[in-house]
C-alpha cells in the first residue's frame, strides 16, 4: 500500500489527513484522490508532491512510479505573511 499524507490547505480541501491505496504512479494516485474526495485535477494542481521526501519535479513528475511502502506528501505553497 502507498500512504498519501495531506498537509496545509490540502488537508482543509480534502477534509482528511491521509489515505492509502495501491497506485501504479502519481497520475493514478491523483485520479484516485479526485474520485474519493470529489475534487478535480485542477483543484490539486497547486499542490506540490513529494514521494519519499523527494519532489516529483526531480523524478518523473506525474509519471513517477509508486510501490508498496512509498509515502507521498501533498504540500501547499503558503503565501500569507
Amino acid at each position, binding site marked *: 500500500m502507498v500512504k498519501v499524507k495531506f498537509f496545509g490547505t490540502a488537508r482543509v480541501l480534502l477534509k482528511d489527513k491521509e489515505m492509502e491505496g495501491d497506485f501504479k504512479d502519481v497520475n493514478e494516485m491523483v485520479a484516485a484522490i479526485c474520485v474519493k474526495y470529489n475534487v478535480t485535477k485542477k483543484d490539486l494542481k497547486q499542490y506540490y508532491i513529494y514521494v519519499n*521526501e523527494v519532489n516529483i519535479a526531480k523524478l518523473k513528475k506525474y509519471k513517477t512510479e509508486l510501490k508498496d511502502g512509498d509515502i507521498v506528501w501533498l504540500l501547499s505553497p*503558503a503565501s500569507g505573511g
Partner: protein
Amino acid sequence: MSLKDKTVLVVGCGGLGGYVIQQLGRMNLGTLIILDGDVFEKSNLNRQLLCTKSNLGISKAQVYADFLNDITDAKVISYFEKLDEHNANLINKADVVIDCVDSVKTRLFLADECKKRKKILIHAGVDGECGQAFICYPDKNTMHDFYANSGEVPHKTISFNVGLAASLETMLAYRVLTNDDEEYKGKIIIFDLPSGLIKVMDI
C-alpha cells in the same frame, strides 16, 4: 566582515515583518532598512507584533523604526512606501533582502528585482498552521518555480505560526550573513503544526 558591517532590507512590516524586524534589531547589525506602505488596521491586532489599539492608523514602517531605534544602535532607515519599480533600487543597498510580503504577485516581483541585482532573498510564507521558508539565490528561479502553479488564494494567519515562520526566516538570514548557509542551499524548510512536521528537504 562582522554583522556590524551588514545591511538588511526587510520588505513588509506586517505579520512576518514585525517579528523579523524585532529579531534583526537584536542581532547587532549595521543598517536596517524597512519598507511598508500600510498603516496598522484593526484586522492586524490578531498577529502583528506592534499592532496595538493606540497604533491603529499609524504607519507600520514608522512604528517599527521607532521601536528599532529604542533597542539597537544600528542605523535605521524606514520608508512609508510599497515596493514597486520606483523604489526597487533600495535593494542595491542591502547585503540580504527579506521577503515579508503577503502576496504571490509581490513576491515574484521582489524575486525578479533581487535576481537582477544579484542579491540573496530570504523567503517565508504562512497559511493557517503551516508554511515554508527558503533562500533564493540569484542564480536560481526558486520563487517562480515554487509558486508556478499557485495563484492568489485567501490565507489565514495565526500569530504563533507567523512567529515561527519569521524565526526561521531570520535564522536563514543569519546563516547567509555569517556565510554559514551551505546546508540550506537548494533546501526548503516545511512546517505543518497539526501533523507535527518540521522538515528540511530538497526543494
